[in-house]
């Protein structure tokens, strides 16, 4: 065997509803109206929640958080394509998916107010891991969950989200390799929003796509227009079907854009232009999907108005509840170091409570 091509790999891109509203009818998934409307509702809820949180943050009522504005189609469509038995593993920019899976804005407000209570809103049975901040590290947990499911004869799958920058970490690589060797039912979704804080995709990687990184593991991989609800639905459903059928992992690159700042501590004007942002506002997912619903006769201004009012009321309730919470146990950190409290920690708790002039109360 001399100099000879021994393998060839192709890479596909999927888009169904383009940014001008043009639909590829052959590829259009058959989603019932209720499902379509639910997607729209949750995208809007995520978007409106971002706005409110930004407001609260600017007033100092919560701490730093990372908005997901512009990326809602990926998180929401995916979460609504999943079964309840499927695990959701996120980074920190999938608010829409969390809301779909039962997290509340209240939980998020608590979390972004620096309260661990925010991660204690959903019971473990709901299979939604808390946000993961160590970039890419969550992917390995997703593989472990996936292996456990397979091992326990559980039919579910795991969806693991990350950003584009996350693909540079060693943990990304180790996770994809483990998943492929173990045939673990994990769908890795890289939200390629073009930026990792101030670093553009082309300084993050030399490859033209993230999807092609799947080839390194002989893992099915595809690049999808992440601002296109229909394409996301099709790609995720295919991957979930494969995972549920025991056919192993998939890598999805969902192309999108981080329309706002990285987190509220960041100022994008330091490193990118308003023009670039404006171009991407033209392609953002909610407007595009609303056009699709309108063409289907499922949406109009009146319904939009009603939805906005409803969401505002829902958000108001959570914010009010958040602001009225006073039941924060000041010595809670001592409670959760270990299942059983070691003597040293008990003593430190006493020391602490005495220092703030309270009685020891091991509640």
């Amino acid at each position, binding site marked *: 065997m001399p100099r000879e091509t021994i393998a060839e790999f192709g890479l596909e891109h999927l888009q169904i509803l383009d940014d001008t509203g043009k639909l590829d009818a052959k590829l259009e998934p058959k989603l019932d109206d209720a499902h379509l409307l639910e997607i729209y509702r949750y995208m809007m809820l995520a978007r409106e929640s971002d706005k409110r949180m930004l407001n609260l943050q600017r007033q100092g009522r919560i701490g730093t958080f990372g908005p997901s504005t512009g990326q809602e189609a990926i998180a929401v469509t995916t979460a609504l394509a999943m079964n309840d038995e499927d*695990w959701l593993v996120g980074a920190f920019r999938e608010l829409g998916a969390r809301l779909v899976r039962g997290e509340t804005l209240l939980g998020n407000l608590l979390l972004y107010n620096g309260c661990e209570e925010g991660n204690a809103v959903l019971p473990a049975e709901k299979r939604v891991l808390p946000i993961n901040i160590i970039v890419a590290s969550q992917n*390995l*947990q997703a593989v472990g*969950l996936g292996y456990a499911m397979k091992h326990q004869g559980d039919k579910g799958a795991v969806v693991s989200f990350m950003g584009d920058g996350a693909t540079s970490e060693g943990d990304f690589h180790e996770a994809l*390799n483990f998943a492929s060797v173990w045939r673990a039912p994990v769908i890795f979704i890289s939200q390629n929003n073009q930026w990792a804080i101030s670093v553009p995709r082309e300084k993050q990687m030399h490859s033209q796509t993230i999807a092609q990184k799947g080839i390194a593991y002989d893992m099915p991989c595809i690049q999808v227009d992440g601002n296109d609800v229909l394409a996301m639905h099709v790609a995720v459903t295919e991957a979930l079907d494969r995972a549920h059928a025991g056919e192993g992992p998939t890598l999805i690159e969902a192309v999108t854009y981080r329309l706002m700042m990285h987190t509220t501590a960041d100022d994008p004007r330091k490193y990118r232009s308003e023009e670039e942002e404006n171009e991407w506002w033209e392609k953002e997912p909610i407007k595009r999907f609303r056009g699709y619903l309108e063409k289907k006769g499922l949406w109009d201004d009146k319904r939009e108005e009603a939805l906005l009012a409803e969401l505002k009321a829902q958000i108001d309730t959570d914010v009010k509840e958040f602001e009225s919470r006073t039941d924060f146990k000041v010595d809670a950190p001592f409670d959760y170091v*270990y299942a059983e409290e070691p*003597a040293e920690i008990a003593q430190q708790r006493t020391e602490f409570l005495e220092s703030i002039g309270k009685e020891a109360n091991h509640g």
Partner: protein
Amino acid sequence: MAKLNMVQAINLGMKQEMANDDSVIMLGEDVGVDGGVFRVTDGLQEIYGEDRVMDTPLAESGIVGASIGMALAGLKPVAEMQFSGFSYLAIHQMEGHAARYRSRSQGVWTCPMVLRMPYGGGVRALEHHSESREVLWAHNPGLKVVIPSTPRNARALIVAAIRDPDPVVFMEPKHSYRAFKEEVPEAEEVLPIGKARVVQEGSDLTVIAWGAAMRTVQKAAKAFGEKTGKSIEIIDLLTISPMDTETIVASVKKTGRCVIVQEAVRSFGPASEIIARINDHALMYLEAPVARVTGFDVVTPNFFREKMYVPTVERISDALNQTLDF
């Protein structure tokens, strides 16, 4: 009762726990067919199959990160790092996740897993195969750090570690793997994590040690006792974190003198924490400074010079002398 070495004893404990509890699974580099490079998992794959005793790809963060996911899903992973010298590739998973899930979620999530690793000198191997860095784990609340010293306590502690509801770093003194045998009962034995053991009572001086250093300490203490007639109390720490202050303090209050023997480099080692706790609770009982016999503050030398680094009977005897003569 059979006479087992530490490798066989840990193997026995794990084998029995795998039989007791279907959710226990083992993973790591070469832990399957090969039974681990030290044979600690020998034969387990044959009994429990490839699904429960898994050879993983060569990636420590991968092994630990996947174990965390398994633990979150209700399995009880026992992961092996081939040598502690390679476990640092996974510190971010342990510090960042395993140690934190309980706190992060106020108890909604827990992470019961065991991270096993051989550590310390004694095998004439290459660089990175001889370090003692238990502090890198012990300084992280949320993790427990356990170090056995004999076959029998190794077996009883690995069982406790597997059953523990929190993540346990289980460091195996590889110098003691095959150095000696001990009667280990076939029937279940469990030792509590977080309790030190007084292995020899005495009234003149307390020696505290753990891991492979225990044997050196016992040798030194025996010779010293015979020569001087001094009565030496020996404490085997067994758990590095959370540390059993009570046993240490009670002993030092009684003897007034203390020598700590650690294989780790001196500065920022476990001995410093023990001294700090003696300072907190028994300072006024001290009749001499607490002495530290330790590895030196150098890059752990390769095996040709290992002996200059690891605490010896001579260095321990010197410290006993000086502390008693102070």
